[in-house]
């Protein structure tokens, strides 16, 4: 195999980013390969395995797990259209049809062929992505992908590495000729008067650029200088005092997490920035990464100093290729100014930070799945106990995993003069600011940084976001990313001391939890009275069925089952038993899985069913047994192609009877 010298040099360089384990370089090598050759060939798998001293199955496992990797060539222009809820509400399915028509792709024929396709011995299973649809002239290819994390500007797509947002359905064909990206498009948006911009102070501000000079001009890296004069334990104390809760979704107190790290142990400590922003409805980190990367880097250096980490990674989702490049540039700038390296600003503290790209798997947002992925494996979350990251994390060493926004907040805690000052923002146990990402059926979707608890849902959606679209009424809101339980406008929540409607719920962690949902990642998805809740749930079910890693039984089997049930219901085959079955399947997943994905995929089902039973009932009317789907008819079955095994056919003639029986 002849590898071009420049590619080989890049490969050898990227391997040096992982001094502990070469295997970690698997995903970076696959990215480099696909960027150069367009897809991952069989020989690529063998070559990469040999290069990293792995068994070829180790690499094959990754290529088939991470959806961004292709095993067939794509068109010269490859279009990824986001299909997850907010984009679907904004017309992503229509967009897909229009783009296909413009590119000369017959989607109906493609889907028919897909059903009969066998890829490397594996029958194609209904879903999207693999294989991708390519136009007959080979110029264009397209696939539906899951959330691209820009729900506020839906519908969105990626054309090769170029991100496009707010795509007009009328101008769908323009996607075939995209040469620029919207990811760093300067949009000057003044903050709403009720916002409190701290982390987003410099986002979408006129003249603000992601380079280090601009950052330093605006007071950047001053907090790092201050931090380096403090004792690490003092910083941890300040973060504890600040009451800062993790902004990734779980809301775990950051200082407490840091306190789990045992200092002075025999093993090194690592810090990982979770920049795998992937919870549908959430799109805050994208702006920090693309527009203000040094804020994150300063927060990370301070945090590494505080927890005693000398090696850190930014695990950035694969769908942010520009973001990864921007961060890499920013890290180089920081390096050249002595802000990274073996002796940062003469303090004696040394730190290396590397950017590590994911490849399209939602589960990498789960911290132990992320760690496995960073180790070059399938992103299978680990069992806890015993694998708590603070004890047995990356390479079985103590590891802190924090969200982008959380790490930025660390810098601001110091800037405000300490945790006590920061804690004055917001409410007790719900301190600081939060960036809320509003998408769906509101007049002004987008991000809003507010003091935690400083306004209610009603104020956010009606005053700040301009209320429902003309002639519409709000029907439902998912308050904290797609996994959070949906709230129905009009329902009442009885709390200990008061009764609330959705409009009255203050935007904090605790009240939302008391109302049976969660603040989660801050992704607020709104649906108005034009929306069918069964279809909305089906969209989310498809997301979770696609994103389940498949490691543990309830989620692997249950997520797909729930998707199939809602698929059937919206196709007109709903039976009167379906709502009860759906609920019970969800109940059998939640709380029984290795990671929180179990809850994430069942909470939408449980809450949609509980809150909108009439919409399910009206579509679930057929008595059991339901009409057989066409593929069960004898005639159709006889048409089903034989499934070929991966390996060559066996030569043992004694087994023909049995073989026939198993096929």
């Amino acid at each position, binding site marked *: 195999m002849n590898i071009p010298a420049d590619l080989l040099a890049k490969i050898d360089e990227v391997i040096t980013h992982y001094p502990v384990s070469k295997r970690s370089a698997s995903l970076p090598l696959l990215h480099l390969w696909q960027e150069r050759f367009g897809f991952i060939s*069989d020989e690529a798998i063998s070559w990469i*395995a040999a290069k990293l001293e792995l*068994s*070829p*199955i*180790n690499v*094959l*496992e990754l290529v*088939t*797990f991470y*959806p961004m990797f292709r095993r067939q060539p794509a068109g010269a222009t490859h279009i990824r259209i986001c299909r997850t809820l907010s984009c679907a509400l904004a017309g992503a399915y229509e967009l897909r049809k229009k783009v296909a028509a413009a590119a000369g792709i017959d989607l109906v024929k493609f889907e028919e062929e897909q059903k009969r396709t066998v890829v490397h011995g*594996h*029958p194609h*299973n209904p*879903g999207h992505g693999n294989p991708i649809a390519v136009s007959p002239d080979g110029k264009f290819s397209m696939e539906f992908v899951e959330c691209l994390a820009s729900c506020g500007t839906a519908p969105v797509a990626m054309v090769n590495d170029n991100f496009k947002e707010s795509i007009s359905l009328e101008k769908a064909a323009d996607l075939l000729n995209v040469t620029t990206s919207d990811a760093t498009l300067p949009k000057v948006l003044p903050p709403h008067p009720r916002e409190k911009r701290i982390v987003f102070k410099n986002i979408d501000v006129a003249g603000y650029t992601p380079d280090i000079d601009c950052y330093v001009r605006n007071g950047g890296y001053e907090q790092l200088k201050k931090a380096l004069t403090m004792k690490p334990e003092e910083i941890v104390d300040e973060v504890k005092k600040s009451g800062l809760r993790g902004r990734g979704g779980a809301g775990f107190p950051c200082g407490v997490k840091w306190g789990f790290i045992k200092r002075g142990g025999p093993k090194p400590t690592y810090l990982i920035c979770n920049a795998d922003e992937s919870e549908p409805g959430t799109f805050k980190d994208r702006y920090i990464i693309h527009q203000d990367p040094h804020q994150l880097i300063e927060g990370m250096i301070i945090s590494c100093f505080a927890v005693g980490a000398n090696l850190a990674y930014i695990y950035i989702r694969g769908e942010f290729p520009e973001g990864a490049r921007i961060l890499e540039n920013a890290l180089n700038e920081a390096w050249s100014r002595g802000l990274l390296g073996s002796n940062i600003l003469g303090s004696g503290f040394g730190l290396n930070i590397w950017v590590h790209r994911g490849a399209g*798997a939602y589960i990498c947002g789960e911290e132990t799945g992320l760690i496995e992925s960073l180790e070059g494996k399938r992103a299978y979350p680990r*069992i806890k*106990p*015993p694998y708590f990251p603070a004890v047995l994390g990356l390479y079985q060493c103590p590891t802190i995993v924090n969200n982008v926004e959380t790490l930025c907040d660390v810098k601001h805690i110091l800037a405000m003069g300490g945790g006590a000052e920061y804690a004055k923002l917001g409410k007790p146990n719900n301190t600081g600011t939060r960036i809320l990402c509003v998408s769906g059926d509101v007049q002004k979707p987008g991000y809003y940084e507010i003091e935690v608890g400083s306004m209610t849902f009603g104020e956010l959606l009606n005053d700040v976001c301009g209320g429902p679209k003309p002639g519409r009424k709000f029907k439902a809101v998912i308050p904290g990313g797609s996994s959070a339980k949906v709230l129905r406008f009009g329902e009442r929540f009885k709390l200990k001391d008061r009764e609330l409607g959705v409009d009255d719920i203050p935007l904090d962690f605790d009240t939302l939890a008391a109302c049976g949902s969660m603040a989660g990642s801050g992704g607020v998805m709104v649906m108005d009275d034009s929306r069918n809740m069964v279809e909305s749930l089906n969209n989310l079910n498809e997301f979770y*069925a696609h*994103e*389940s*890693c*498949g*490691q*543990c*039984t*309830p989620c*692997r*089997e*249950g997520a*797909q*089952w729930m998707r*199939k*049930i809602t698929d*059937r219901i919206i196709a007109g085959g709903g*039976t009167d*038993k379906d709502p009860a*079955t759906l609920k019970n399947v969800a109940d*059998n*997943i939640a*709380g*029984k899985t290795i990671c929180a994905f179990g809850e994430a995929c069942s909470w939408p089902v449980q809450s949609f069913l509980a809150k909108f039973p009439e919409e399910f009932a009206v579509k679930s009317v057929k008595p059991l*047994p*339901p009409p057989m789907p066409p*593929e*069960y008819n004898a005639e159709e079955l006889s048409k089903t192609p034989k*499934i070929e*095994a*991966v*390996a*060559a056919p*066996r030569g*043992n003639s004694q*087994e023909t009877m*049995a*073989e026939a*029986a*198993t*096929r």
Partner: protein
Amino acid sequence: MSAAATTTPVQMVNVQIDGVWMQFPKGTRVIEACKQAAKLIPHYCYHPKLTSPGNCRMCLIEMGTPKMTPDRKPVIGADGKPEIAWIPRPQISCAQDVSEGMGVRTNSPMVQECRKGVMEFLLINHPLDCPICDQAGECKLQEFSVEHGNANSRFLERKVKKPKSVELGPRVTLDAERCILCTRCIRFMQEVAKDDVLGIVDRGSFNSIACHPDRKLDHNYSLNTVDICPVGALTSTDFRFKMRVWFLKETPTIDVNCGTGSNITIGTRENRIYRITPRDNDAVNGPWLPDSHRLNFKFVADPKRLTAPEVRPQLGESKPGWQQAINLAAEALKKNSGKVAILASGRATNEELFLVSRLASALKASVVDILPRTGEADGMLIAADRNPNTTGAKLLGVATGKLAEIANGIRSGSITALLVFGEDATNAGLTADDLAELDALVAMDILPSATTDKAHVVLPSSAWCEKRGSMINLKNRIQRLNKAVIAPGSARDDWEILRDLIFAISGSNGLHSIEDVFKAMASATPTLAGLTLSRIGDLGVDLNNRELPSAGHVVPPTLPTL
């Protein structure tokens, strides 16, 4: 798996299982503690010899820790025992060790709901091909379905399609649709075989076990993945579709392909061997067995097996009866008394070798030895000594290292008769010409060889699976052979042939059963004093470190590894 005996006292912790307080050594897995308390927790992915991934979720239980007062003191209940704070979510029992004051509920309504749910999930995409599935009858999906599953299916959707009849390697076939993704096979290959060839491809509910086309599952321990596969996903290409397992008669015995003496189970039906599987014995092979050993049984049913005694025409009838053949052999050997050599075998049992030594003294044999048989040790279970009973042969004085003297003796004329027992003398430095020189050549064997071709008397004997007896492995552990099938035709048990030869040469020796032979051997051999065949038990006895069992001593049955 019994805990290894240690000299330091084991710290015990108090654990409440289903309301009963019990003590377990610190470091015991919760699932193992429950097993010891006779509460078998259903599970698929957990295997005591492999790491715990906790992925099948079948072993979910309710777990609790001691309730603490604000100043971290355990709250004591009315019964004087600590109160337990139950964790609201079910916990897996396969990945946690017991801890002081832990509470476990193995059969509460919540636990039953969990099992029911997981069983349903495992079955919705599982093909209903039990009637033709090799695992049927020993399938954990079937077993736990009966105990914990639902009576009705409510799955109305199309099942996920996955590859079937995939040749993962030369000996293992995969049906991915039957697979429940417990990853036991992957972990076995990584952790035990240290050959990382298996993995999972695709994602979510399409996950399938696979190997890369460049690196097949061809390791010599690959069939262990079939053993530990809890369902019918991995099947033995050799055994596949040959026999329903419930028809198999299972005989516990030992492997004779090397000095390790791995414990095995032979599965037979109507006097035919269908498969050999490892039998769990931590002191020998654990639950594992090399492929090359377990598949080496086809020769037993070889159509060329010797089935009746044969005699060279010059000695008399060519198709004699047994008594005639024994008498002719005895006569021929006796005539050469003092000039007789015996080539015995390290594959023979202790009982046979004991009788060989008696025969040697009756014949005043000048040389007795066994044929050494060596190969490369694999660092796992295959020993360099490929004879299963070298230790026994040495103990009984049959392995003398004088093999070379046989050839020399024949060539110098000091040896004129040779009894070859279970070996081909041409493998022991003798040529066909040497054999032709002999006045008497008596061969006992199961298959024709260069030696049986030249022998004056051929006495057909039994293969290892056709007889009882004992052997001593390289770690000095005495273990039992059991009879799984009957020898073909009129072939006889080796010890009986030897006993009859001795009788014909020197009169009765009072041995009427294999037990008698063992008793005689044990009384003549101090190392074996106090042992009987039945006292050896199914797991054998360590002769280095042996407590003499008292009469009536009962070996407790070990619970099977699921």
